[in-house]
C-alpha cells in the first residue's frame, strides 16, 4: 500500500503540491489528471521517492519511503518515464534486462522475467533492435517492458502516452490495467481525461497542488468541474458504446 499524507512540496514561494493525502491500493489503476501545473508530476516524483517533500510523508506498507534503501525501494516500486533517450545504442533486450538490476536472483531468473515482459508487451520482433532506432511508440512499449521485468508491486507511469498515437496509447494503458488486474498498485499521470475515464478504476483530479476530486470516473468527472479547471467549455456525456463511461468533449456550451 502506497500512501501520501499531508504532502507539501514548496519550491521558492510556490506550493507545487499543497497538503495532499491520498492512499493507493493494490489491484487498482488510479489515474491522476488535471491541468498543466496542477502538481501531477510533482506528486508522482514524491511518490516515486525522487523528491523529498517539504512537509508530510510518503509510506510504502507503513514504512517511510525515505528510510528505504535505494535498492530495496527499486524492488518495491518502478517508474515508467515520459520518454527516455539513451545516447548509446543498447539493444532492446539489454534495456529490458536493466530492469532486473535491483534483483540478484540469478541469470536464469532474469532471462525468464525479460522474456515474459517482452511477450507480454508483444515486442518480440524488436528484441534485437537498437533502442534509438525505434519509433516513439515502440520505445514506450520497451520502457513498459523494462518496468515489467523489474517486477514490483507498485508501478508508476509518468505521462506514458504524451507523445504516442492513439493505437499506442490504447496499448500502453491496456497493459497498465492488466498489471492492476494482476493485483499491483498502478498509478498513471495522464493529460487525456478520456483515457483516464476508460481505463482507470479511480481518478484523482488535481488543481493548484491540491486534490480537487477523488473517486470513480462517473463520480468525479463532470462538465462544470472540467470547464472550470481547464478554463474552456467542456461537456461530459455518457459514452455511446460503453455505457457508464464518461466521454469528455471540448465544446461551446
Amino acid at each position, binding site marked *: 500500500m502506497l500512501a501520501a499524507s499531508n504532502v507539501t512540496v514548496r519550491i521558492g514561494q510556490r506550493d507545487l503540491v499543497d497538503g495532499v493525502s491520498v492512499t493507493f491500493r493494490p489491484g487498482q489503476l488510479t489515474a491522476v489528471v488535471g491541468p498543466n501545473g496542477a502538481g501531477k508530476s510533482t506528486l508522482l516524483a514524491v511518490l516515486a521517492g525522487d523528491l523529498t517533500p517539504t512537509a508530510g510523508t510518503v509510506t510504502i506498507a507503513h514504512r517511510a519511503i525515505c528510510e528505504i534503501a535505494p535498492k530495496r525501494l527499486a524492488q518495491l516500486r*518502478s*517508474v515508467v518515464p515520459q520518454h527516455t533517450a539513451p545516447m548509446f545504442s543498447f*539493444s532492446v533486450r539489454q534495456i529490458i534486462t536493466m530492469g532486473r538490476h535491483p534483483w540478484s536472483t540469478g541469470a536464469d531468473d532474469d532471462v525468464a522475467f525479460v522474456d515474459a515482459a517482452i511477450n507480454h508487451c508483444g515486442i518480440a520482433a524488436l528484441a534485437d533492435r537498437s533502442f534509438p532506432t525505434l519509433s516513439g511508440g515502440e520505445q514506450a512499449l520497451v520502457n513498459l517492458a523494462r518496468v515489467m521485468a523489474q517486477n514490483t508491486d507498485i508501478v508508476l507511469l509518468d505521462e506514458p502516452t504524451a507523445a504516442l498515437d492513439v493505437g499506442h496509447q490504447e496499448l500502453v494503458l491496456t497493459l497498465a490495467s492488466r498489471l492492476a488486474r494482476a493485483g499491483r498498485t498502478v498509478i498513471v499521470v495522464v493529460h487525456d481525461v478520456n483515457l483516464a475515464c476508460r481505463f482507470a478504476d479511480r481518478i484523482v483530479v488535481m488543481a493548484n497542488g491540491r486534490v480537487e476530486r477523488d473517486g470513480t470516473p462517473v463520480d468525479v468527472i463532470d462538465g462544470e468541474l472540467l470547464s472550470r479547471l481547464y478554463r474552456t467549455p467542456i461537456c461530459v456525456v455518457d459514452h455511446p458504446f460503453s455505457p457508464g463511461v464518461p466521454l469528455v468533449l471540448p465544446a461551446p456550451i
Partner: protein
Amino acid sequence: MTARGRTLLSALTVLLIAAFVLGLGRGAVPISPLDVLAILTKRLSGRNFGVGFTEQQDAVLWTIRLPRVLLALGVGAALGLSGAALQGVFRNPLADPGLIGVSSGAAVGAVGSIVLGFHALGLWSVPTAAFLGALTAAAVVFRAAHRDGRVEVVTLVLCGVGVNALCGAAIGLLTSIADDDKLRNVSFWQLGSVGGATWELVRALLPFVVLALLALPRLADELDLFVLGEREARHLGVRVERTRLFVIVIASLAAGAAVAVAGILGFVGLIVPHLIRLINGPGHRVLLPASALGGAAVLTLADLAARTVTVPREVPLGVMTALLGAPVFLVLLRRTRQTSGGFA
C-alpha cells in the same frame, strides 16, 4: 559477458602484448622479439637462456625502452578507461578528458606544483596536484552542463572550449615565469610525450592506474543504467549522486596522473571507447576493460610510430594521437548527426 565480448577482450590482450614486444624491440638499437623475452626473463628471474643479446641491448631495453613503453601503456590505459567511464556518467560520447578540459586542468595542476615548488608528497606531489586540477575542471564543466539529471551536450563541449582556453593561458603563464631547468617546455604539456620516461615516473603513475582498473569496472552495471538517465537509474536502485561522484573522482585521478607524467594527449579517451562501442555495443562490462586494453595498445603503438617514423627526429606523441584521433572525431560527429539529427 557475451562470446563476442570475450573474443574482443582476448584480441585486445593479444594486440597489447604484440604492441608491448614491438615497442620494446624497435628503435635505434633493434632488439628481436626473442631477445626482448630473453632480456626480460633474465632481469625478472635472473636466469639467462643464453640467447645472444648484447649488454648494450640489455641496458637500452631496461633503462630506456621498458619505462617508456610501460609509461605509454599505463597512460593509454588510464585515458581509455577514464574516457569510457566519464562518457558513461555524463551520458555523452564526447566526454573525453582532453575535450572537456579535464586533461588541461590536470596540466595546470602539474605545472603549477612544479613551478611553485610543491613537493610535500614526494614522488606523488605532481600527480596529486594534477588530480586536483583535473577534478576542479571536471566539477566546473559538470556543474555548468548538468541540469535536471541530464548533461547538455553543447554546453558541455563549449565549457570544455572555455576551460581549455583558460588552462592553456595558465600553463603559458606558469611556464613563462619558470626557470628552464625546473620545467620541461610548454609544448611538453600541450602536445604530450612519454619521451622523458623513467622508472620513477612509471612508479608515480602506477597506483592511480591500478586504482582505476580495480574500481571502475565494478561500476559497469550502474554505468549502463546511467545511460537510461539519472532518474531512471535511481528508480532502478542506483545511488546516483554517490556513484557519479565516485566515477568522476576516480576517472580524474587516472586522467590527472596520466597528464602529470605525459602531458595532454588528446583523443585517446574519445576514439578508443567509441571504436569499442562500434564493435561490441555500449555495455560497460566489456567497454571499460576493453577501453583500458585498447587505450594501452593504441598509445604504445602511437609512441612507437612517434619515435620511429621520422628518425632521428621524434614527432610529439600528442601530435600523433591528434593526427590519428581528430579525423575519427570528425567522422564520429558526422555519424551522430546522421543518426540522431546532431547534437543541438
